[in-house]
């Protein structure tokens, strides 16, 4: 990593430009996401799961990694998106992009409304409030079974071809292409956002919530904005899941989903754009492999993984890697 020193070597403008410059490794990363099409065509459904979960983790990274808001109920927006896209597809029409738009809209409206609560609290109270709101929504979806199908899940979602051409096939070529494309678009948007003055203000809030207003940045207004954006992205991720699997299970709103995405993000490295993406891939591939060995004790290995990451890799896999490359460059 090159050390950027905006105060002495460059103007703010060139600093911002340098932040947003594409690196060769990034381009290689995105080209590598195309490999499953040719190398692992039997794993395409896992690959779409990874793309969807990576998008969800990216949305959590925005609020947790950058703004420092710990949420234990982020699955609320993922689930809202999944149910809105599913219900819209079932009862209105099956065109995929308009379904995603509805998912984004619903998650965004609820996210904006709850952001007024979120921005008022910090620390444990915030964790408990997000947990409580998430559990409330889970209960609501469970009891509104006339609309959501309750614990049986929402059935009968059938989706039309993307652009009217690409049908969702049995092997998952279209599903993965669709999920990957949306992930990439949302990633571009997030990347742009993070490398803007707004993104810098978020990092300021993470480092010191109370001092930011002193330099003219209203912490609470910023939190409301980024929370809404994060909710929208999580909603889109949920929407893609509903559309590509053509069903919605109550599990999309569960506490486990909130906890798992948190684990993935921290595993990959929170506060880094690629942290959630790497974390989701490692987590889901590991789960796929381990649960093949013994499904019942898979949680043992997540537990061990978490303890190891917290004790030995405080900034996740990516943090550990960048420390390693920094040491390698020095010698």
């Amino acid at each position, binding site marked *: 990593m090159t050390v950027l020193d905006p105060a002495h070597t460059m103007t703010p403008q060139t600093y911002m430009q340098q932040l947003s410059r594409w690196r060769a490794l990034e381009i290689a990363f995105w080209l590598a996401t195309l490999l499953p099409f040719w190398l692992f065509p039997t794993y395409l459904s896992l690959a779409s799961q990874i793309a969807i979960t990576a998008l969800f983790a990216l949305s959590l990274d925005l609020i*947790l990694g950058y703004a420092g808001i*710990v949420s234990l109920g982020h699955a609320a927006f993922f689930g809202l998106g999944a149910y809105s896209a599913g219900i819209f597809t079932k009862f209105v029409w099956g065109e995929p992009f308009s379904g995603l738009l509805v998912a984004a809209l619903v998650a965004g409206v609820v996210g904006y409304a709850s952001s007024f*609560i979120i921005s*008022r*609290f*910090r*620390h*444990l*109270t915030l*964790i*408990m*409030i997000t*947990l*409580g*709101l998430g*559990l*409330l929504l889970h*209960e*609501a979806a469970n*009891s509104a079974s006339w609309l959501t199908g309750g614990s049986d899940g929402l059935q009968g979602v059938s989706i039309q071809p993307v652009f009217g051409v690409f049908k969702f096939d049995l092997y998952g070529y279209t599903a993965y292409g669709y999920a990957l494309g949306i992930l990439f678009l949302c990633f571009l948007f997030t990347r742009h956002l993070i490398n803007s003055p707004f993104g810098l203000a978020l990092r300021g809030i993470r480092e010191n919530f109370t001092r930011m207003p002193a330099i003219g940045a209203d912490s609470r207004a910023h939190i409301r904005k980024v929370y809404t954006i994060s909710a929208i992205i999580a909603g889109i991720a949920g929407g893609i899941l509903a559309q590509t699997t053509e069903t919605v299970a109550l599990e999309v709103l569960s*506490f486990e989903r909130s*906890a798992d995405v*948190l*684990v993935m993000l*921290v595993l990959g490295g*929170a506060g880094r754009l690629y942290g959630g993406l790497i974390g989701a891939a490692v987590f889901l591939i590991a789960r796929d492999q381990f649960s093949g060995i013994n499904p*019942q*004790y*898979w*949680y*043992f290995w*997540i*537990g*061990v*993984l*978490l*303890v190891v*990451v*917290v*004790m030995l890799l*405080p900034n996740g896999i990516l943090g550990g890697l960048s420390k390693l490359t920094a040491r390698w460059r020095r010698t």
Partner: protein
Amino acid sequence: MLPPVFGVLFDGIAYGMLLFLLSVGMSVTLGLMNFVNLAHCAFGMIGAYVAVMLMKDFNWNFFATLPFAFLSAALVSVVVERTLYRKLYRATDLDQVLLTIGLAFISVAAAAWFFGTTQQPVAMPSYMRGSINFLGLNIGIYRMFLVAVGIVVTILLVMTLEHTRFGAQVRAAVDNQRMARGLGIDVDRTFAVTFALGSGLAGLGGALAIEIVGLDPHFAFIYLVYVLIVVSVGGLGSIAGSFAAACLIGISDIAGKYYVPELGGFLIYLVMVAVLMWKPAGLFGKRS
């Protein structure tokens, strides 16, 4: 003759006492030491399994197992505190959350490995099983026992933390570690003992809980949410707050299930969110 509302109230308070016994240890560790320990109910689970094993495999009396439930949970917690937790006392909330949730995952898988995933049978002595009739209300003897234990534990804890030398050392070590060290207080030892006390209480709560709520490997997770609710609603570090919150949550849960079953599990979450929005630091809390 008393109207049935008193029966609901009593059951709610008895359930609240159960939640209180499970969570008061966390009120000590999280409230006093500022350590977010999501593995707290795993220590409760250790106490519960120890009690069940002693009763089942060694034919111990239920009451004889209780001290061992306390001791085994305390002992395991000292080991974990020495090896893992003490390095994270000054880490961020998030790191503590992740480490301890990892330990909770491990404990659930380990319990499933050693004891199987089925519910454990409990053999309570026959004289604890019945109920007595009081002015037309059926009051369970075991529930009365729970309420009594809850009150005794509250009094003992408040006395220990407010009126003994040890309590003064704990409060000093928490408020200002450097100053406490300067005064000759062994801060490390004080923290370890406090932590063992909190976890031991969880173990005791776990052993007492199995008669009412049963025991399977998911215990560490299911009751974690309730414990967190009690602690945050009561206010960090306030024993009296946890006591009040546990009663409030217990009563609203039982009353909700009795009078408005359509609301089901909603009510306690609603109560929690409402209380926290009204008082972010909890009912008796001083800091959020």
